[in-house]
């Protein structure tokens, strides 16, 4: 049996407007998890994993140099960002639950922001909740947050994926990140 050819998948689904991400998700989800697991076993404890670096590694492994099409790369990264979000959230949820025994999340105090306050897993969960909220009112901006934050995508890549100008991406992103920060901080 053949390995699923991601490039072909991208091309195949690129024609069926927007479904690429959905179809790619399970594939990428599995691949990213596998990559993370393999990396950790290889590099032992003490080494750290950057999620966005992992996404890039997945691209190189699954598609690599064989496909230099920007549109494909953008679709791929969009799907990979969403996969990475799910992976991190699942992991954070598990950890956070163990720690808090299921209590609610505590919002961040804006004044403590620079002190790296709060546990990272809680922060991730807060951000995820905020993104979910944003998805209801403005799904495009929510998508941009996922791509920027979880996938480390450039404005150019996002613009390519969404079919808008880079300037528009920059504008949405500026607004969305401010909105996001407000959403995760305590009322003053």
């Amino acid at each position: 049996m053949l390995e699923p050819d991601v490039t072909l998948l991208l091309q195949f689904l690129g024609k069926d407007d927007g479904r690429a991400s959905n179809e790619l998700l399970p594939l990428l989800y599995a691949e990213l998890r596998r990559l993370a697991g393999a990396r950790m076993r290889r590099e032992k404890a003490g080494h750290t994993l950057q999620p966005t670096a992992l996404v890039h590694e997945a691209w190189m492994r699954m598609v690599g140099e064989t496909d230099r099409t920007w549109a494909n790369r953008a679709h791929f990264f969009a799907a990979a960002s969403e996969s990475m979000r799910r992976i991190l959230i699942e992991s954070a949820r598990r950890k956070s639950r163990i720690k808090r025994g299921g209590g609610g999340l505590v919002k961040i105090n804006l004044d403590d922001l620079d002190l790296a306050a709060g546990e990272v897993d809680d922060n991730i969960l807060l951000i995820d909740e905020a993104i979910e909220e944003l998805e209801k009112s403005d799904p495009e901006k929510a998508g941009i947050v996922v791509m920027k934050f979880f996938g480390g995508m450039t404005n150019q890549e996002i613009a390519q994926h969404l079919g808008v100008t880079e300037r528009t991406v920059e504008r949405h992103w500026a607004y969305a990140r401010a909105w996001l920060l407000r959403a995760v901080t305590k009322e003053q």
Partner: protein
Amino acid sequence: MNSKQEQEELIFDQARELKSLAEQSSFLEQACNGDAEMKRRLLELLSFEPKAQRFLDGVMGKVKDSHLLEEIPDAPDEFDDQVGTMVGRYKLLEKIGEGGCGSVYMAEQTEPVRRRVALKIIKLGMDTKSVVARFDAERQALALMDHPNIARVLDAGATETGRPYFVMELVRGFKITEYCDANQLTMPQRLGLFIQVCHAVQHAHQKGVIHRDIKPSNILVSVHDSGPMPKVIDFGIAKAIEEPLTDLTLFTAYSQLIGTPAYMSPEQAEMRGSDIDTRSDIYSLGVLLYELLTGKTPFDGQELIRSGLDNLRHTLREQYPQRPSTMVTTMQGNELQATAKRRQSEPLKLISALNGDLDWIVMKALEKERQRRYQTANALAMEIQRYLDHEPVLARPPSRFYRLRKLVRRNQIAFAAAAAVFLALAAGFGVSTWMFFREREATKIAVDAKEHEAQLRAAAERGAANEVELRQAAESHAKNIQAAGLIQNNRFEEAEKLMTTIPQKYQTMEGIQALRSLGEWHAIRKEWQPAAKLFDLVLKVNQSEATYYSSLDYARQACTLMKLKDAAAYETLRQDMIRRFAGTTERHIADRVLRYSLLSPPDAKLSERLSPFVGCLTNQPINPASFADDSAWHYLGVAMYEYRQGQYADGANYCQKCLNYIGRAGPGSARIAVANILLAMCDVQLGRKDDAQPHFADGKDLVDQKFKTPLPATDGFSSWFDWIYARILLDEAESLMTCENYISPGH
């Protein structure tokens, strides 16, 4: 995002460029146009803006140092490092394969017997329960399969983590295609292996098991004392893991489970899962055979996926692939060399080996409608055996009539490809030049290669002096090949448009065949005018082709001109035919010249010129051996000649000779009709009306019967023009009979 949100975002975007809070505030005062709530919201948001990026960067930085990613359970490949662990009662020993579908391990079974098996663990994402349930439903049937060329599926179950697995007889071997190429198996050797595969599939079908996923990677060849032995693996698995497919899951199905749609039958692509039967496997066997013979699949699997779902289905449902011989002919020179070498053959030999029987066998297995395929794997195997034994095969070119019917049915569908051809040709020199070189490449290996090259070189030399002419020559040669391709796909109208743009001096051999097919297409539709034009062109262009073929071209045109009642043109044609074949010693040519030049009475001079042809037929004693097949029938030409000379008794005599020896004429063939009609005509002229009557009736019956339905190009015994000939003669006989009745009513 609604317009109010958008407006707010635009204001925000401008405001964040401003340095101080005061500047921002006064800008917002204006921009918000008195909407105090909006201003407050935006000011608040602006206060978060400077810290937002830093915050997000900070969190991501911390993710890196956290253990979030380290603690991901490594589920999807949990068995990667699991060699040595137990799955059910099987101990994993070694990973021997991995694919879209899952991983395959060599495993050891300890009870009830100790043996090595192959264990295939299906990837996550399947509904394990229904997979196992579907497998259980097949288990009974699978257990009944017992064939040396089938790897048995022994068991199935679910791992502790809920993934389905299958246990199979362990086969150590190579993909059949790889094995054949690596060992440079000849065509007969490949066909021998393929026959074994057919027998295995037949056995499974008899036990009620359909494979559904026959492709090279599921047929492994291992070498035994007795020679190479193919084994079909994965029987029953495709059905078990085949989810009810929807468009949405389709791709996953293709890429993960099935790998490539290149081997998929049209009905499988339609996704009506319940509608799959054994003949779907026959199609896949056809694809496998195609690949064993040519090294390629009829349609490129990746191209199919790339074309998108609808196009993929459309292609599999509507498009006829190139015949194997054509596929090989269109390969680049070095690719063709390599393909031939892998079969211990040479390009020309390979092409001629494929051309004919093997082409038709493969194409029959690949029929779109399954009732037109071989109905069983055994039938396919027997057919190949017949080919290997040099016996006639049952597969025949699909009748022109059938193809015409299909053409009419398909006509509504616009063929994008046709448009592409025209565009490419219209696109001008760049494409044409490319086509020119491609064609040059292709013609190098074509059967009449030398002649072509000379033509092309001549064209190129002429063109060096005159670029316009070069271009025209190149385009014409490209068009010839394109037209031949269009005709092969029954796209006659398009082909004709293309052909009429080719100047006569640039016609090629492919072009002649194309023109001939077009003429026949018109003729069987009774469009005599365009048919005559095309046959005329064929005869003009084709002064070099073997006489056998061109004598048939004269026959075609003779009938066509008679139907057109163009006496002058017919006269010219028969003079030309007599000149061209004067001095022939071949009986069948002499017979043909006589028959087709005597559709209308000759003058004395013409009769004189025809007498050598009669001599050719009557001076030579008939060889008893060849008499057993066809020779007696060549007297039909003599009979026709004697009739036209008024030698009715001799004419009747020769007709009788033919009829006494039916030989291989075939029951109900056109020449039986002709002999009867001509005999009746002789009898009438001799005043033996009562004798004439039954022969006339016999002949008339045959002809009337034949013309009840549209004429096929050929019905296996007679060509369309044989029947037109009979019809013309019948018309003459009918008027003769009425005439006789009128003149001598007292008879």
